[in-house]
Each structure stands twice: as C-alpha cells, then as structure tokens.
C-alpha cells in the first residue's frame, strides 16, 4: 500500500506540474479574427483593436479598413476585434512571426522597443507632431523617437452630484484635506462619500504624487519616496479608514453606475462616461480636478487613451506605416468620428480638438479646459515592472495602515532596480 501511494502521487504531480508550466509558458489563444479583406490585394495587413464598449465602433473600424482598400487596391486590411484581456493577447501574439501588423496600446515600454514589437514612426508623424498633445505623445516616446500615433485621449477627473453636496452642506473640495472632509460628510445612509475603485485605490494611487506637485519618476530616477507624497497618502488614507469610500460595488470606477444610482456622491471617472451621466442625471453633476495637497500642490487631471503602433517584426512595415498615416494622421474625418461619434474622447490633435463641436459646450468644454490646464500623466518609463512595487506599496499604506514613507522608500528601491534593468532605447 505504502508503495502505491508515491506512484499515484508522482503521476498526479506530473500532471500538476505540466499544468503549472504549461499555464505559465503557453499564453492564451488568439480569438478568431473578424473582418474582411479583398482577394486581389497583394498585401494583407492585420489590424488589431481591443473591444471598445461603445456601440458602432466595430462597424466604424471595418468601414475605415474597407475605405483604405478602396483607395489602395493593393492593400487589404483585416480587422481583428479582440474581446476580453486584450493586453495579454497582443503581448503573446507579437512574440510570434504571425503577430498583428498594426495594433493599439496604451504605452510603449523600452522592452517593446528593444524587442522590435514597435517601430519608429517619426517619418510619418512629420509636422503633425507639433500639433499633438505632448502628454499623449510622451508615453510613446523614447530618446526623442516616437513609436506610436495617439488615436484618442481619455480624460480622467472627479465627478460629483451637485444635489448630494448641497443636501449635506458641503462645498466643492479644493484641497485633499477638504476632499477627505467632504467624503466624510457625504457618507449618509446608502450613499458613500467617494468612489475611486472597488479596492479603495485603483483610480487614486496614480494621482496622489501629481497632487503634491511631484512625479513618480524624474528621468531614469524613481522619485516617489518623498515626505510630501507620503503625507498625501496618509491624508487620503483617512477616506478608507473612516469608511467614507464606496468599496466592493458591482461595477468598477470607469463605469458611471455608482454615481448615477447615488451609491456615491463623488467618483473618479472618465470623460467617456459623460454622455451617459448627462443623459441620466441631467444637470445634477459637475466636474472637478483631483484637488491639490500641500504648499506645492497642483490640481490633477489624468490623461489616458489609446495609440496605434506598427509591429517592428511585421513583413509589411512600410505598408503598415502608410496605412497608419492615412488613418490617424491624414484622415481628419476618421479621427473626429472615432473620438466623438460613439463614445466621448478628445482627439489628440489640438486643431481637431478645438474644432470638435461636441467639446465646445457645457461639461465637455469644462473637461477639455481642465485637461489643458491640469492634464498630466506618467512617462514611457513607468513600465509595469517599475510601477508594480509602487502599486503594492499604495495598497499596504491605504488598506493596511502601513507607514507611508517607510513603505514607499522600500518600494522605491525595487522600482529603481526594475528601472535600471530597462534597456536604454
């Protein structure tokens, strides 16, 4: 009996280890591509999009591709609409020779450049470059070379319910301390004061360093372990410990549901949600930047968004570049359509943003003004390996009452190690 037990265990164990190794090494499968292509074309470009939530975006992407083939009969474009975890899918796909020729990303890391997952696009950017929002370009730029073309800018800031603030007799907060006080006063009955993410930090942790007028990175130096940033964390933490944060809600912060249902009075959110919020709440909401903290503090509006890159390992780099130039640089109609016909985003070109009619009035105009005034974001060196220790430290400080400065200092050492390992490109 005792002899057969190890036999069984060895077999199970082999099965188990195969699963572990297989799971870690073989990344997820690709989804079936959708979209057309023309039979007579000499070159077929594979173009990947993540699944945009807005109605009509997929049809629009297919239409752009078809239009391009109409004008360039030699080049067919096959659009692949990738649902679910887009990032891991493109990351595993570009490891193979069959990866997409053109795909979209949020930021270009130095590793992506070193491994030729992207290619320099300076030549197609040309003079348009001066017109692009510098914060939209910075996460795509290394050593002065741009590796992507921004498609849309997303603006993230605080939304609040005017009626709930008025009922509680709370003024619109202009400092972090006031925000903490407001959140406390607004927490009544089934309404919580503020929502920054179901874990109590997802939307907030990246904002705090900017709110004291500092940055997480200064060139190739990690600079987030400062007394000022630590103090911002200590103050912001009170919203968590005083239970004035909405936690564990059914939807995430990027969905406006919590604000609309009144589960929270203030919420970190994106401009993309503006059409729905104004449809559901009418006049009962307004926008405000994340408030400043301390004497050197600045109000913060965060930029995000999607950008287009060309796979450096593509067999058709030149054709892909031409296509990207046509789609996102020359074709104003497409850029406006993509940013504003389905959801609500800001076109990255200053000229187009200024002309865009839906952005000229009301809350949308206010958001664009706040973006121009306070918009900022992290640079291309804030790669996942570098930011991970920071994110973990933020969790420990906010949710486990860890000492802010000591925790940030320990994390900064690890971030610096990761930063030093990034190739210089």
């Amino acid at each position, binding site marked *: *009996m*005792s002899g057969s*037990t*190890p036999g*069984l*265990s060895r077999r*199970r*164990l082999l099965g*188990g*280890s*195969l*699963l*572990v*190794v*297989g*799971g*870690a*090494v*073989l*990344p997820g499968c690709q989804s079936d591509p959708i979209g057309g292509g023309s039979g007579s074309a000499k070159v077929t470009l594979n173009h990947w999009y993540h699944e945009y939530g807005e109605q009509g975006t997929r049809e629009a992407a297919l239409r752009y591709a078809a239009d391009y083939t109409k004008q360039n009969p030699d080049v067919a474009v096959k659009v692949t609409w990738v649902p679910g975890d887009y*990032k*891991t899918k493109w*990351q*595993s796909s570009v*490891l193979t020779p069959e990866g997409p020729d053109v795909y979209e990303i949020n930021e270009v*890391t130095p*590793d*992506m450049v*070193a*491994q030729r*997952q992207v290619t320099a696009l300076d030549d197609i950017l040309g003079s348009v470059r001066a017109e692009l929002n510098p914060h939209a370009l910075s996460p795509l730029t290394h050593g002065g070379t741009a590796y992507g073309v921004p498609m849309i800018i997303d603006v993230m800031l605080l939304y609040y319910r005017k009626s709930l603030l008025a009922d509680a007799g709370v003024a619109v907060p202009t400092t972090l301390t006031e925000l903490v006080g407001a959140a406390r006063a607004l927490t009544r009955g*089934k309404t919580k004061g503020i929502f920054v*993410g*179901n*874990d*109590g*930090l*997802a*939307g907030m942790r990246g904002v705090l360093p900017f709110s004291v007028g500092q940055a997480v990175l200064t060139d190739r130096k990690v600079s987030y372990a400062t007394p000022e940033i630590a103090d911002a964390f200590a103050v912001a933490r009170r919203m968590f410990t005083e239970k004035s944060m*909405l*936690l*564990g*809600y*059914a939807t*995430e*912060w*990027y969905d406006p549901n919590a604000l609309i249902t009144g589960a929270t009075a203030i919420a970190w959110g994106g401009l993309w949600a503006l059409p729905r919020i104004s449809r559901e709440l009418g006049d009962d909401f307004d926008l405000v930047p994340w408030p400043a903290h301390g004497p050197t503090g600045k109000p913060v509006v965060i930029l995000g968004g999607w950008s287009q890159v060309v796979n450096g390992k593509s067999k058709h780099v030149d054709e892909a570049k031409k296509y990207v130039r046509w789609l996102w640089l020359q074709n104003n109609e497409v850029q406006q359509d993509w940013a504003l016909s389905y959801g609500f985003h800001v076109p990255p070109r200053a000229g187009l943003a200024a002309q865009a009619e839906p952005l000229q009035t009301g809350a949308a105009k206010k958001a664009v003004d706040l973006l121009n005034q306070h918009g900022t974001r992290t640079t291309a060196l804030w*790669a*996942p*390996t570098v930011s*991970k*220790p920071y*994110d*973990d430290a933020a*969790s*420990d400080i906010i*949710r*486990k*009452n860890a000492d802010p400065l000591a925790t940030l200092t320990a994390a900064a050492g690890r971030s610096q190690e990761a930063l030093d*390992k990034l190739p210089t490109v």
Partner: protein
Amino acid sequence: MSVRTGARQADAGTVRPAPGSARRRRVDWSAWRAFALLTAPLLVGLLVFKYVAMGWGLLLSFSDARGTIALGDWAGLANYRTLFGDPRFRESLSMIVVFTLVIVPLTFAIALGLAVLVNRLRRGRALFRTTFFLPAAVSYVVASLIWKMSLFSGVPSSAANSLAALFGQEPTAWIATVDPPLYWVVLVTVRLWLQVGLYMILFLAGMQEIPAELYEAARVDGAAGQWRLFRHITFPLLRNTSVAVTLLLVIAAFQAFDEFYNLLSTGLAGAPGPDGRPPLVYLYDVSLVQQDYGLGSAGAFVVTLLIVLVTLVQGRLVGFGRRDGD
C-alpha cells in the same frame, strides 16, 4: 479492438507450444502498429504542447527573456535570485501554504461529512448526491463573479451584508478589507462551495466499496453507535480514498488562480493587490503583464518544485502514519 485482442489471446492459447514462433511475432507487430497509430495523436500532442513547452520553459528560466521567448541571452540563476529576492514572491509562497493548510482540512472534513450523511440516506440519495455535486460543474470564474457581485459585494443590499444587518452589524466591504483579512471568508467559501461536491462523490464511491458484512460483524461483536462504526470501520477503510483526496486537494490548492484573480482584480484597472496574491497570480503578472518570460518560467518551476516536495513529504508522512497506526 477488444474483439481482436480476444481472438489473439485465443490464438496464442492454441499455439502455446511454440511461444517464439514467427506467427506470434507478426501478430505483435500489428498490435504495436495499431497501438502506435491510435496513441500517436495524443503522444505527439503531449510531446509538442507539454514536454517541448516545459523544456523550453526550463531554458527560458535561465535566460534574460523580457518581451521575447527567444533563447540565447543566458542569465544563469539570475531569475531565481530575483524571484527569491522579491519579498512579494516570498509572501505569495507563504500565503499559498497557509491557504492550503486552511482549505484542505476544511474541504476534507466537509466532503467526508456530507458523504457519510448522504450514504446513510434510505431515500433520495441520488437527489442529494446530485445537488451537492452540481457546483462542481460551475466555472470558477462564474462562481467568483456571483460571490463578488451579489453575495459579498460591499453595498448594504448584498446577501452577506443583509444577513449582518439582521444582527445589527454595519455593512462591510468584504473583499476590500484586508486588515483584518475578511477577504479570506470570500475566498474560502467560494472554493468550498465549488469543490466539496466532487470530493464527496469520491468518498461516497469509496464507502460503497466497503462490504456491508464488516458492519454486521462489528455489530455482532458488540460495536454500537454510528460514531464507533465510522471511527473503526468506515474511516480506516477509506484510507486509499483519503490519501488520493488529500493529494488532489493539495495540488489544486497550490494551483489556485481563478477565484483569486477574479475576486480580487479590479477589472481594467489592474491585477489583484499584494494581499491574496497566490504564486500563480504573481507569475501571471510577471509573465503576461510585465512580459518577463524568463522570470515567469523560473517561478513556474519553483512552484512545480514546491508541489513535488509537498507531495513527496505528504506521501512519506501518510506512509509512516499507516505503519504506526497498524
């Protein structure tokens, strides 16, 4: 296939005097061909998709492979050093050990208890067996979302908070509260609900193998009371099942990923935080988010080794236990 095998055996029987004859060898060859033909797809698949991948993974774990799975940039043991130098990885290892120590005995006891109860039923046994087994067919992802969004959501109307309200408790953010670690309640209950049924079936099968005469004999010998019968007959004779169940449970616990990832991640906003991050979630993040495939592979082998080690130790302990017990 079985008909042919039977015929061959009959043939072999009739020609027993000439065991090494050419005829018999020819029959063996055709059987071998059939065997090879039928198993080849599986074996080739296993070789290509498992063993080659494993071998490649092992080589990658000694390479500096960031943003690529190409070999060649050898780094020696650097990945292993980085891994063990990261306090978060060490935390994730100790976390999974604690999780295993909690979930394995709990599942074992509840599954065994249910099996005993269901086995004693005179009527409706199939109904209860099916009812308890049903959750095993539910996906971990689906169950996690139900636990996250309705049972243990942080709003006052969630099931757990409604129940708490009956006792005058304030609504609690179950998943977001890591100090005290209330999220463990969510993690443990969802896994229990999902896996208890399956192991109950294994125990039930084991119990039905125990001959009824043993119980009768014990009663004749004066062993009275259900507990004594369970203690001295059922449980000792379930030994094989118990060993298998424990092994499966330990391996499943070490491979925990789905419910941790789905309960604790914040959607597009990011992977789970440092609390409740088992090794596989840590490695998923390293490989597929940070694109460090070398480090990720090293971690996969460390976890594999850990499972091997724990299983061997466990096999040893159980073996010793038996000899001592007897």
